[in-house]
């Protein structure tokens, strides 16, 4: 085991993992985090905290992660390369690790054009694959990107995202293999609505045996309304929503129930695909529904999150 991460432990044990997404508030109120943590805490092995998702300013993912850590939960800190250069990211990762945070998800990040500060300058000093390499080097070689030594290296469980639905399709698997050779320990995919297309992608993944080199968690999004389904279909780049799902939502009498049903059906189907080791539930602004979904698919209760080993960092200290 590389870390004390609960997610790493669950995945290593072969158990089908569940992670959930938490969007931090657009304000300084910690209660918002605590409220969502209460909803998600018992039904997810780890909780992803987005890093200014869609380029809209929110509470820092690391700060929110510390709040989760204080509740005994296992946060997955998302880090985008849009806003910070290699200096800032390495510094932030050391800080997160000092707070006992292990899981980091490496992303390039949505372009600022989509956010609330479209006139800002972006950074993109490094890309997501280079970010993975950098974190691996910090962890395994105890060195910064520059080559300088780190006295106490951060203990990291490194994640990355992949979108099986974006183009060019064949390149998506090549890109996944690049992420794996860069050093990613787990993958969370873009939300799956088109299960056939996802299966096709997983087939290519298995052909290259990539599923044996990393842990793949399939992303899902429960849809709340027909309007949301349509909006996402038309406006969210990188999402692929079949017409059938939109029409099911439009025809449904109880739309929320239909949304839950679509989500649980998807989970049940992806769970059967060889090489899928977990799900990642992105219930954007609908966190309250996550426990119900996890329960319905029979994934409750979750394995208990083990107690923090307070001497873990010291034992890894080369000087100690």
């Amino acid at each position: 085991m590389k870390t004390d991460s609960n997610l790493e432990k669950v995945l290593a044990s072969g158990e089908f993992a569940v992670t959930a997404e938490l969007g931090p508030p657009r304000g300084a109120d910690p209660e918002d985090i605590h409220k969502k943590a209460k909803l998600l805490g018992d039904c997810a092995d780890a909780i992803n905290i987005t890093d200014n998702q869609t380029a809209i300013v929110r509470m820092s993912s690391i700060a929110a992660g510390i709040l989760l850590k204080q509740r005994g939960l296992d946060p997955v800190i998302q880090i985008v390369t849009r806003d910070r250069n290699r200096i800032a990211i390495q510094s932030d990762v050391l800080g997160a690790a000092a707070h006992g945070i292990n899981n980091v998800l490496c992303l390039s990040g949505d372009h600022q054009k989509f956010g609330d500060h479209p006139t800002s300058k972006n950074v993109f000093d490094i890309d997501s694959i280079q970010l993975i390499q950098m974190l691996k080097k910090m962890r395994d070689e105890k060195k910064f990107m520059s080559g300088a030594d780190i006295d106490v290296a951060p203990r990291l469980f490194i994640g990355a995202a992949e979108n099986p639905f974006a183009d060019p399709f064949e390149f998506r698997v090549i890109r996944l293999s690049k992420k794996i050779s860069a050093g990613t320990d787990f993958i969370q995919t873009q939300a799956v609505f088109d299960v056939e297309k996802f299966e096709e992608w997983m087939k290519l993944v298995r052909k290259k045996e990539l599923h044996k080199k990393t842990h793949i968690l399939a992303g899902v999004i429960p849809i709340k309304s027909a309007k949301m389904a349509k909006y996402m279909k038309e406006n969210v780049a990188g999402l692929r929503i079949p017409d059938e799902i939109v029409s099911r939502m439009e025809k449904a009498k109880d739309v929320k129930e239909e949304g839950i049903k679509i989500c649980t059906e998807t989970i049940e189907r992806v769970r059967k695909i060889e090489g899928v080791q977990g799900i990642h539930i992105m219930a954007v602004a609908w966190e309250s529904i996550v426990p119900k979904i996890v329960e319905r698919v029979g994934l409750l209760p979750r394995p208990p999150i083990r107690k923090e080993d307070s001497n873990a960092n010291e034992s890894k200290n080369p000087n100690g």
Partner: protein
Amino acid sequence: MIVAEQKPIAEIISIAFKHKSILVVGCGTCVTVCFAGGEKEGKTLSSLLRMKAQMEQKLLEIEELTVERQCDHEFIEKIVPLAGKVEAILSLACGAGAQLIAEKFPDKIVYPGLNTTFLGITEKQGIWKERCLGCGTCLLDKTGGICPIARCAKNLLNGPCGGSQEGKCEVNPETDCAWQLIYERLKKLGQSECLEEIIPVKDWSTSRDGGPRKVIRDDLTL
């Protein structure tokens, strides 16, 4: 070439009207080719300024001149006689040309008449596109002759982001995804293995991040 666009007329008028006399200097190289600041654009702009001045009964002497290149000392020498007659100079060159004029005439107020936009190509008459960012370390050999630094909104060096859809960029559906182009081209050239190689982090010190750059050729200096 350097591609530029003329500043909005209203902005230029408000600049020019601060003075009683102004010299409009066109540039005969890049900005002539992209129809932003050549001789004809200088004449058109001067005509508009004269008309506006007359409409508002404002006294404004306008001198016009277009030089071969505003970014070369020897060519801007020609401006000297006219520059002596005016209060200010409006340069229709790129930012480099406008700055050399400012350097040449330390006592004159020099205004830019253009917004310098990018290093690019003429795709068709009337359409220009960005192709180069001048990063100082060209990597086109690794990317099939298509630059992901200049042509990907996120400068991604190792493949497309999740927003690439049907070959288009999520930032602007009219823009081709650079990585889609790279992918197709490398495949066609039988160089698909390039796609699997992780391109290492970029040394940005040769780019603008290393501070203003300078090239010296000892064999050429006098």
